């Protein structure tokens, strides 16, 4: 009988073959399943990334355009320069809002009554008079002339034109009134209301008026903060990695240090913020909200990342290179400086850039040191109060005005662009300069 029996000795080769054949199908199926799992995991990840990008870009791209209204502005000498002597001080303090009001009334001469006029004046941004002042200060010859000038529209007009306010809603339930809609339609029909590229978003600091708010201040704050972070953490990180890897004796102390460095890399960032508050602000008396303190705190956070990446890069340099250098009579410092460090540098730079990208996106530790703040003036130094890009996103997301929703997404897009740039740079560095043995 063919009944298998432990004591029986069938031809061995056929037996193994049947066993293999019996399981082969299952093993192939398992492999196929595993591939499917992998594909599923990747596509799930991609779907989430696409959803996030789609959502943010869909919400944020209108913020790169901004509505402007073309007004006939009469630079009335009686208002701007009543004395007629072109005194810059008098011109600076003239009533430019009156010019804007006259311009709006000239477009809609039939509007009467205080309430109606107020609604009409609300079409233009409170920035319009400042813009006119700037133009007149730069070109005093404008006084006495009449010009067609494109001026910033208010955020409500802008939001409405972009279709983010429901035209069909009851009048009481939308921030824009029926008569205002009529005026906007009229302006659009005559081509006096247009969307232009929103340069303000990139050239000005924060503002409570959505149409005047920009990310320049936050960008400069991020720049100064990251510069401090890099200047501090890169040399210190590299020096630590080189010392620990090449010079330090291997004993309990260096083991302890290593454990601590790995630990630091995993500490939640808010803890560094608390440390920064206690040490840099309360003990050393550095000013709150300064990029210098932000940079110090973030470099504490980035240091372990750079050290760990640096040590990994150093260990990947083969020992034969060290031995050859030493064998040729180089000192240990020469061996490290001339041979090991240059070979490890691309790896170290990659690690640092990734660490810096993380620092760029960090906001929690900055909460403790006062960088979550409304700052209008663009910071000009390491000690000026400033905020950073992720904090600006957080602050804008919490404001009631609807026009800030798209600006929040636009700021996220800018932040993402910088992230992609930095991470891309890290990959290019690794691909081009890293050597494999």
């Amino acid at each position, binding site marked *: 009988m063919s009944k298998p029996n432990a004591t029986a000795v069938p031809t061995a080769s056929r037996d193994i073959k049947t066993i293999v054949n019996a399981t082969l199908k299952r093993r192939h199926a398992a492999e196929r399943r595993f591939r499917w799992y992998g594909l599923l995991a990747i596509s799930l990840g991609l779907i989430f990334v696409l959803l996030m990008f789609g959502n943010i870009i869909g919400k944020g791209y209108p913020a790169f355009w901004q509505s402007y209204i073309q007004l006939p502005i009469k630079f009335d000498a009686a208002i701007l320069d009543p004395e007629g002597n072109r005194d810059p001080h008098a011109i600076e303090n003239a009533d430019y809002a009156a010019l804007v009001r006259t311009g709006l009334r000239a477009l809609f001469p039939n509007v009467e009554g205080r309430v109606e006029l107020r609604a009409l004046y609300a079409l233009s941004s409170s920035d319009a008079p*400042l813009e006119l002042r700037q133009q007149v200060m730069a070109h005093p010859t404008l006084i006495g002339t009449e010009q067609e000038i494109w001026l910033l529209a208010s955020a409500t007009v802008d939001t409405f034109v972009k279709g983010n*306010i*429901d035209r069909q*809603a009851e009048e*009481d*339930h*939308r*921030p824009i009134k029926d008569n205002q809609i009529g005026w906007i339609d009229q302006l659009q029909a005559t081509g006096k209301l247009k969307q232009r590229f929103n340069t303000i978003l990139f050239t000005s600091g924060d*503002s*409570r*008026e959505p149409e005047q708010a920009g990310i320049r201040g936050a960008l400069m704050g991020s720049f100064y903060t990251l510069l401090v972070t890099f200047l501090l953490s890169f040399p210190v990180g590299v020096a630590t990695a080189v010392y620990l890897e090449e010079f330090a004796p291997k004993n309990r102390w260096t083991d302890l240090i290593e454990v601590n460095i790995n630990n630091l890399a995993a500490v939640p960032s808010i803890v560094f913020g608390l440390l920064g508050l206690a040490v*840099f*602000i309360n003990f*050393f*008396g*550095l*000013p*709150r*909200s300064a990029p210098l303190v932000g940079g110090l705190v973030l470099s504490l956070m980035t240091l372990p990342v750079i050290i760990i990446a640096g040590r990994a890069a150093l260990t990947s340099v083969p020992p034969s290179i060290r031995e050859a250098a030493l064998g040729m009579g180089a000192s240990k410092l020469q061996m490290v400086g001339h041979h090991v460090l240059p070979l490890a540098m691309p790896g170290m730079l990659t690690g640092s850039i990734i660490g810096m990208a993380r620092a760029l996106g960090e906001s929690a530790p900055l909460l403790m040191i*006062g960088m*979550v*703040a*409304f*700052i*209008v*003036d663009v910071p000009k130094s390491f*000690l000026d*109060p400033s905020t950073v890009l992720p904090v600006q996103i957080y*602050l804008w*997301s*919490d*404001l*009631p*005005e*609807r026009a800030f*929703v798209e600006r929040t997404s636009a700021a996220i897009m800018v932040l993402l662009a910088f992230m992609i740039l930095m991470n891309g740079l890290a990959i290019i560095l690794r691909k081009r300069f890293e050597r494999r043995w």
Partner: protein
Amino acid sequence: MRSHQLALVAAATFALTGVVCAQSARDYISVVGSSTVYPFTTAVAEQFGKSSRFKTPKVESTGTGGGFKLFCAGVGVQHPDINDASRKIKPSEIETCAKNGVTDIVEINIGFDGIVVASSKKTKPMPLTIKDLYMALAKEIPDPATGKLVANTTETWQDINPKLPPNRIEVLGPPPTSGTRDAFVELVMDKGCESVDAIKELEKTDSKKAKAACQTIREDGAYIEAGENDNLIVQKLVANPKALGIFGYSFMEENLDKIQGETIDGVTPTFENIADGKYPISRPLFFYAKKAHIGVIPGIKEFIVEYTSEKAMGDEGYLSQKGLIPLPQAKRKQVAADANSLKTLAP
């Protein structure tokens, strides 16, 4: 050799300390405090920076309590000049301030903030009362039969009040860290349990326990902590028309085409009703200024005057456009006068 290195390190550390301790004098006003007052103070700060010869003040959003901690830490340029608060200063905070030498504090009431209970426009409005809200959200409510406090197991609004629709109780609100939540607890939960007999009994024996029983919000999913961000709650309401949301009035005003405020005790949350004090869930907003800093940091007095001017906090001022509910006119005059004379808190 080793001591040589040590000395070098020590010298470097001292040098660093010396350099960084040379703190520059501050030439801008530093404001900290409540995230509820933040949208208003920033508007004044921007206006002040544009229209005066002073620099634009820096406004930090730290929360009321966190702000007082910084504000009361001492007198000097490294400490903030003004703290925004969505509640009155506590006696304990005045004490801390005094301990650190901050004694002359100017209190300014800037206006009111209404807290609305709102839903999506897609659903029918629900006339609520303070009692309904308390019964729906408290962790323990009196059993209708015995009057004893039992765990809250109500599931629909109809369970609480037969006049209400049979919708599931689902309220999106701020987490305990938020000032809005504090105010909601004080104005709704505390008031709602005033009429509960079992708690009155408890009050006599153990007032602490009674207070806790009033203020504890249920944790079985009927109240959903939706984060500090009010915009998020608005978006969630639009997505889930059956739910109610709790947030500041200015967020409702901006989104009136999507959401509606429920009437509370028969009063709709409108600008006028909150300003008149008819709408029951509203709280006063304040800021506190350090008198010792006036004259040291340029512009503080002028900033206070700008904040309390009719142009800013008046009926038609730019703050009311940002959603601040102005004080009644007589009170406003009083506040402006007190601000001008820099009247300090009575010790």
